[in-house]
Structures are given as C-alpha cells and as structure tokens.
C-alpha cells in the first residue's frame, strides 16, 4: 500500500508531465485577447480554476458569484443569451452536482452556448473524500441531450478543447484535469467533435480510455506488446456525442474492449460503449471489461485511489488478458 500523502501527491510517471490547468488558463487568456465575447464565471474559485492571470488581464471579464453554483450556471446562461461566450468554471463535483438542474434546464434544454469547465474532476481531490470527488459527472451529464462532453487526455488536448469551444460555441462540458499527465498526443493532438482518436493501433484488444486514463492505457499497451499482445488504444476525448463508428469498428476488428475512466462505472464511458456494443449483431458483440469507480472511495491520495480501483497499468493489463482467455 502506498503511503498516504497530501492532495498535491500525483500518480507517478516516468515521463515528463504537463499541467492541464496551466494549459487551460493560458489558452483562455489567449482567446480572450482575440475575442471580447469571452468571459469567465466562477464560484469563489479564481485560484483553483487558475483564473488569477485571466483576472489580472481582464478584471471586468471575471464574474465571481461566490459560493453559489446554481446562480453561477444561471448567470452563464444569461450572459450567453446576450451573445457573450461564458466559460463557467468550478470544481467539477459542485458545478455538476449542485447545479445539475441548471445545467439541464438553463444550458442543455435552453441551448445557451455556455462552456462548463469542470475543474479537478475524477478523484483529483484524493483524501478530501467522496464529497469532493467528481466521478458521477459523466453519468449525470450523458443523460442530457444537446450537451457536448469533452475529456482531454493531456495539456495539448486541453488547449484544443478550449480553443474549439470558443470558436464554435455550443453547450459543452469540459473536464479539466487537476494533476499533471504525460503528453499522449506528441504534438499531434487531435480533437474532432464526436470522434475518438486512435493513439495506438493494434488488433488483439481495444482499450478505450478517457482523460487521465489514456496515458495509463498507452503504458499498458507497451507492457502487453512485450508479451506479444497487440492493443489498440482509443482516446475518448469526446464522450458526447459518442463515436459509435469507432466503437463498432473496434468491436468487429479486435477480440474485446476494455474501457478505463476516472469515473463511475454506472453510466460513464464504459456504460456508453457497452450500450453500443450490446446492440450490435451477435458476432460483433465483443466481450468487455469496464474499469472505473464502483463505490464511494476510501480515504487516500489520488494515486492510492487509482490503484485501489485498478485504474492503473496493472488493472488494464489484467483486464486485457482476461478478455483474451475468454
């Protein structure tokens, strides 16, 4: 068992890691220079949403409503109603949980072009506990028609997500990861609406991973390659709209699908993929393993919790091997 440390403790990587939140903040400032319709709305989270520099440059364009998430999302809708492009930023558990009805009625159903930025999602708040984890966000938001869900896998994809949301504003939720992750897109980051991207090709098993799990899926693919197993890794940066084509292709071309997400197994990426696979004709109905969070987390750092739930290289390798023995 890993020794427990503070919430700044991040899962270990051998490779260099990059900060999603810095990428997010830099990109937002950059587009705000070019487009005066860009505004930021937050819930006393100027610091935790990395908006300090943005506020220094655009003091009037940060609307801090205080600790009031329902109002925050409603205000975002009102700003969009008059033609502004609001980036509504808050810790993901409170943004999506506390203001879920506002996200449903004011953003998705009303089709106000608001960009909801779920900061520090998943189990990034580690030992602060399940109240501060945001593992339900994907499940909750997937049920809302008309809301895009974007989960960038690295800093470069985070930049793309911000840039694209600003240039083609539509109701969108972006998960902005708290801890640093390796560069998984290597200068060739792609982000196409409604598409997964293939970050590694292979033909034995497909791993569909999202966000922080993409780097682990690539590491797992390396381990498996050494054992003679060829793994296809898909980066599911778009959870909604869902890439049904890529899922169907993976189910047909490989012997099974493993999904990996720092989110609940009830209704998240894995459930989304399974609902596609289950409706395929019998021969294409590939077996699956769904890796995610299945209970309120025990106390522990993010790294500890990811290990606890098997959201690591070993967990993915084991799941792939299980599928190959079926």
């Amino acid at each position, binding site marked *: 068992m890993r020794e427990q440390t503070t919430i700044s403790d991040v899962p270990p990587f051998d490779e260099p890691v990059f900060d999603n939140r810095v990428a997010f903040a830099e990109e937002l400032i950059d587009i705000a220079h070019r487009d005066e319709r860009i*505004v930021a709305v937050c819930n006393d989270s100027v610091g935790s949403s990395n908006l300090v520099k943005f506020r220094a440059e655009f003091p*009037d*364009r940060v*609307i801090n*409503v*205080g600790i*009031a998430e*329902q*109002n*925050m*999302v*409603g*205000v*975002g*809708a*009102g*700003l*969009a*109603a*008059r*033609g*502004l492009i*609001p980036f509504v930023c808050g810790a993901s558990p409170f943004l999506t949980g506390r203001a879920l*009805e*506002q996200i449903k*009625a*004011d953003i998705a*159903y*009303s*089709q*106000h072009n608001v960009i909801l930025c779920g900061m520090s999602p998943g189990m990034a708040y580690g030992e602060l506990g399940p109240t501060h984890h945001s593992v339900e966000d994907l499940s909750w938001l997937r049920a809302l028609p008309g809301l895009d869900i974007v989960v960038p896998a690295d800093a470069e994809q985070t930049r793309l997500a911000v840039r694209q949301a600003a240039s083609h504003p539509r109701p969108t939720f972006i998960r902005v990861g708290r801890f640093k992750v390796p560069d998984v897109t290597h200068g060739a980051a792609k982000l196409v609406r409604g598409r997964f991207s293939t970050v590694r090709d292979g033909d034995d098993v497909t791993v569909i991973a999202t966000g922080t799990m993409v780097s682990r899926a690539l590491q797992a693919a390396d381990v498996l390659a050494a054992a003679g197993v060829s793994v296809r890794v898909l980066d599911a940066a778009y959870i909604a709209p869902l890439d049904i084509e890529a899922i169907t292709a993976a189910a047909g071309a490989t012997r099974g699908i493993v999904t990996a997400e720092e989110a609940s197994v009830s209704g998240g990426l894995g459930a989304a993929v399974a609902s596609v696979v289950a409706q395929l004709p019998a021969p294409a109905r590939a077996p699956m393993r769904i890796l995610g969070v299945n209970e309120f987390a025990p106390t522990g750092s993010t790294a500890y919790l990811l290990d606890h739930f098997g959201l690591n290289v070993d967990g993915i390798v084991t799941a792939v091997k299980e599928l190959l023995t079926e």
Partner: protein
Amino acid sequence: MMIAAPDSLRDWQAERSEIAQLPTTAAGERLRARAQRTRRSIIRMIDQAGAGHIGGDLSATDILTSVFFGVMRVDPNEPTAPDRDCFILSKGHCAAALYSTLAAAGYVDERELDTFMAPGSALNGHPSRGKVAGVETSTGPLGHGLPVGVGTAIAAKLTGSDARTYVVTGDGEMQEGSNWEALMSAAQYHLDNLTLIVDRNRLQQGARTEETNGLDPLDTKLASFGWDVREVDGHDFGQLLTALTTPSDRPVAIIANTIKGKGVSFMEDRVEWHHKVPDAEQVRRALAELEPA
C-alpha cells in the same frame, strides 16, 4: 420551429408608443382592456388544453401586460436584437399568460394559441427557448429565472448596452435558495438595470405561503439584500407603471400584491385553482365575468 407573427398582428409597436404618450391613468385604462383580453385567452387555452395553471396565470396577467405594453423596449420582428430588453418568466408554469401576452405583442400568431400543450406544439406547458420567439430561456423548475436575469443584466453592462432585464417570479418560488444567491449577486454587481417583480398572491400549490414556509417580511428581506423595494397593488396599472419606470441606482424589486385567480370571482384567492381545470359551465361563467365592461 419558431412561430413568427403575420404582419396583420404587428400593430403592437404602435399601440405601445400610443400608451407611452398617455397620462398614467389613461394608459392604465388601455392596459386594463388589454389584460382582460389576455385573461379571456388564458381561459380558452386552458379549456382547450384541459390543463394549465389558471390561478397564477390570472394573478400575473396585469404584471405581464404592464411590462410588455408599458415599459419593454423590444421588437417582435427582431426578438434577439442585441440591444433588446429581456423578459424572463421564472414562474414558467404560467406559460398560458406568457403565450397570450406574446401573441398580443406580436411574437406569436394568435391562432397558435389553440395548440397550447397539444402534441407537437411549440407551446409546451412550460416555455421553451428556441420554440417560441420572445422566450429568452426555458423555465419551469422554480428558482431559475432570476440567476439567468442576473446574467443578462451583467452582459448588458459588459457590452455597454442600456437594455433592462425584467424577471417575474412567483412568491412561493422565493422559497428556492437559488433566488437568494441571485439576489446577492445583483447587489454585488450593482445591477441597476434589473427589475424583479414578485407575483405576491400569497398562495402556493398546496396552501398559503405563510402557512408553508413564510416569506414575510419579504420587503425587509429584499431590502436587506441591497435591493430597492417597491410594494404595489399588482392589479393597479398606475402603481405598476410607476414602480416599473422610476429609476434607481440599485436593482429594483417590485412586490406586486396580487390575487390568485384575479378576475374570476369563484377562482379568486382559492388554493384549489392553482391548476384546476374549469368545466364547461365554469368556463362560460369565467368568460362572462371577463367581458369588457
């Protein structure tokens, strides 16, 4: 599907300008006649649909009429014009009152009112943005309109527009905590371009507000949140117009004391008419009572 009004119905701007020229008393008379037509329309819509929230529709009618025909600077031909005033009916269950008012104002074809809540109609039981011109945001769940109104008011400030935002809430709706979040924000952001009108009919779905989760003293509460509070008879057009047009350096909250079911004697101030549907005889009696004097 957006419903646009045919040209023949677009006499509203002229009527509005005319009303604006009149002294308050004469303007009030014009608005009263307009409101009675809207009430008859509401009765017919709910009769036809077999559903609706008749009590709150009738309590809010004079407020909606005053706002749309007395103060709003909007053009139904250009419902999303950048400088438009914004209106948000936060008590979205009173959609029939809103649709009837929007029809009178030229946003909605009056013939479409017959489709209220019919399968496939744009006129859902609660207003849906994108389906009906003039609906700034979808409402229905309570406590949503004021935060959105704070957003439109902040946006007007940021873009240098002198547009105003008007939000109508129910009084029972003020039990929703989100409203109080928004009230704080409006004061914090000095939103002197925002007007809240509380339809204070003192009844909510199941009982009197004060027997359920008391709001009084609502004026003191709103004032302590930094709002300029004005209390009026919500069926007196002179008082409504004065409260709506008197400028302030703060956000303005108008507590409009109203009667739920106003205008139909057997519905007035009776809790069961929150969403009861009148039978044929009751419809006949209601329409007779609402005939112009």
